[in-house]
């Protein structure tokens, strides 16, 4: 029998500006006595910045919340505000917003798989170390990420913090020639995406098996991005305006960020949750690649998130190609509207999961109140539960270095904003 140890692991985590976090873990008498993931989310400040601003400024302002998923913040914001202003942007805008979101999923997921998470799965300390042994795979990731960035650049004006989105639509319609070039580029990386599904299916498995409560948007006819109702695997179904009736945000002592529970329980948002709940909306071409790679759904192994991201990259490429094949520039790229007072809600599917916005505006179109619930905040309780299960499954008697490595892998696998720092766990151990 392994000797029982009392271990206190404090991980004063440094993260990138999209979020800062730390991990506190105390093992006493062979059991986890304390475990707390602390994440500090900057969007709270943005909510206050928005108050008093003209609602037309919101898309550009919220894009600054995250350098990796600015489109998600723009999409949730414009849909919520348009619901107040009773705007119907029409099918052209709807299609282009979907295309824009495809770009963000492709670039964000590619970055996460190849540069942030894969080193954990392959046993490397960093992406540069992995690149020495797997240069082709890293180059593939950069190609895919570049393709996603290019979609955002064409529609958003630039790939980082895009500025092309406005209330009612887009500031301009891309020229057909630019869209034809984009289409050719996306077709060119389709083989990369197909290969990636197979590669990730061989990489990502072996996480703690436990029942996951998945929450994702569900649309009657398509894989969800901008529209749909919030659903769970066990039949819960509600609109974004009912978010507060089902999801409770609350403060925990060990974190300045709010946690969220769905009817009192941790829940999962993100690619694995989306795929578990919406796999029937994948086109045949994507399902065939999945089946061939051995991706089986639904899955309650969190390490299958790698495969889920790869499948979503492939799906987003197919969807973007489909939208581009029939592209024609609109005569009017944005719907007209008049200011109107009211309260609006929207949930869209950010790369990391459900991103919920609520806005109240006055009759002049100024923001009276704003609330933003990002996916990382919603996943915090799930990450803590996963950490506890994973560490206990693997054995708490393992050396601290192995516990730390496993904890990092589990956390990064969720692609939280704090993963922007590729190696953020700075470990100190106190033996009690």
């Amino acid at each position, binding site marked *: 029998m392994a000797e029982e140890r009392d271990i206190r692991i404090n991980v004063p985590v440094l993260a990138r500006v999209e979020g800062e976090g730390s991990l506190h873990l105390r093992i006493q008498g062979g059991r986890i006595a304390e475990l707390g993931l602390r994440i500090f989310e900057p969007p709270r400040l943005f909510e206050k910045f928005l108050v008093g601003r003209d609602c037309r400024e919101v898309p550009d302002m919220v894009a600054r919340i995250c350098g990796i998923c600015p489109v998600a913040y723009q999409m949730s914001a414009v849909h919520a505000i348009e619901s107040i202003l009773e705007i119907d942007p029409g099918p052209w805008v709807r299609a282009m917003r979907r295309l824009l979101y495809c770009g963000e999923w492709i670039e964000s997921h590619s970055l996460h798989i190849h540069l942030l998470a894969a080193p954990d799965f392959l046993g490397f300390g*960093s992406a540069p170390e992995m690149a020495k042994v797997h240069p082709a795979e890293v180059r593939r990731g950069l190609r895919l990420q570049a393709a996603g960035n290019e979609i955002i650049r064409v529609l958003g004006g630039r790939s980082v913090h895009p500025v092309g989105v406005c209330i009612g639509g887009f500031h301009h319609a891309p020229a057909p020639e630019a869209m034809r070039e984009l289409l050719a580029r996306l077709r060119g990386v389709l083989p990369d995406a197909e290969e990636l599904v197979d590669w990730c299916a061989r990489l990502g498995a072996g996480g703690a098996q436990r029942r996951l409560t998945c929450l994702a948007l569900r649309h009657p006819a398509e894989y969800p991005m901008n529209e749909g109702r919030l659903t769970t695997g066990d039949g819960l179904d509600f609109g974004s305006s009912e978010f507060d009736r089902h999801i409770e945000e609350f403060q925990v002592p060990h974190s300045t960020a709010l946690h969220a529970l769905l009817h009192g329980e941790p829940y999962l948002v993100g690619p694995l949750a989306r795929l578990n709940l919406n796999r029937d909306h994948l086109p045949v071409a994507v399902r065939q690649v999945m089946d061939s790679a051995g991706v089986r759904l639904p899955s309650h192994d969190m390490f299958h998130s790698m495969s889920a991201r790869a499948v979503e990259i492939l799906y987003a490429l197919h969807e973007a190609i489909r939208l581009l094949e029939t592209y024609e520039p609109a005569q009017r790229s944005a719907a007209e509207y008049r200011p109107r007072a009211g309260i609006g809600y929207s949930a869209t599917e950010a790369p990391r999961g459900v991103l919920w916005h609520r806005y109240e505006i006055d009759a002049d179109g100024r923001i009276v109140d704003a609330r933003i619930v990002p996916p990382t905040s919603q996943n915090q309780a799930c990450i803590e539960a996963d950490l506890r299960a994973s560490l206990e499954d693997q054995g708490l008697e393992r050396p601290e270095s192995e516990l730390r490595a496993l904890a990092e892998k589990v956390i990064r696998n969720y692609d939280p904003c704090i993963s922007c720092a*590729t190696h953020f766990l700075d470990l100190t151990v106190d033996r009690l």
Partner: protein
Amino acid sequence: MRVIGVGSPFGADRIGWDVVAELSRWDELPAGMILSCCARPDRELIESLAEPGLLILIDAMHSGRSSGTVCCFTAAEVISGEDLISTHSFGIKSALRLAEALGSLKAEVWICGIEIVLETAWRGGDHYTAPVPRDSLNCLGIIKEIKKILMDFMREHGYPEGPGLVSSQ
């Protein structure tokens, strides 16, 4: 000669962008100097490293030197040295190492670091102070010093010195 300001919109981390913005207003901006910015050491920076030619990266630095100190390092010095350059967790060092591992470090890279004061300096991470006011870049002589460094590079490498182009992202 390409000059790229590396940074983010947050606090003192934007100093690389602000320096490039100041340089873009330079009346005597040389013809052979192309200015741009990138958001942190990202994919676009890695692509820039793959293009042959002289490439100067301007970034915030935390090394314990006096605030406002400007230091230049070669890519080799940054790759082999401690992570003194850049406040980014996936910093310039990581980008250089990644490009080197991929065999795509084709540019002659120099890193021009500007020392900033961190409110809290955590090992391996980052924590930013308030932005460095634009005015102080000139008051502290930072812009003047960087202009001199850039002109020296241009002369040494035989680049033209007439009016130039400005590009930025």
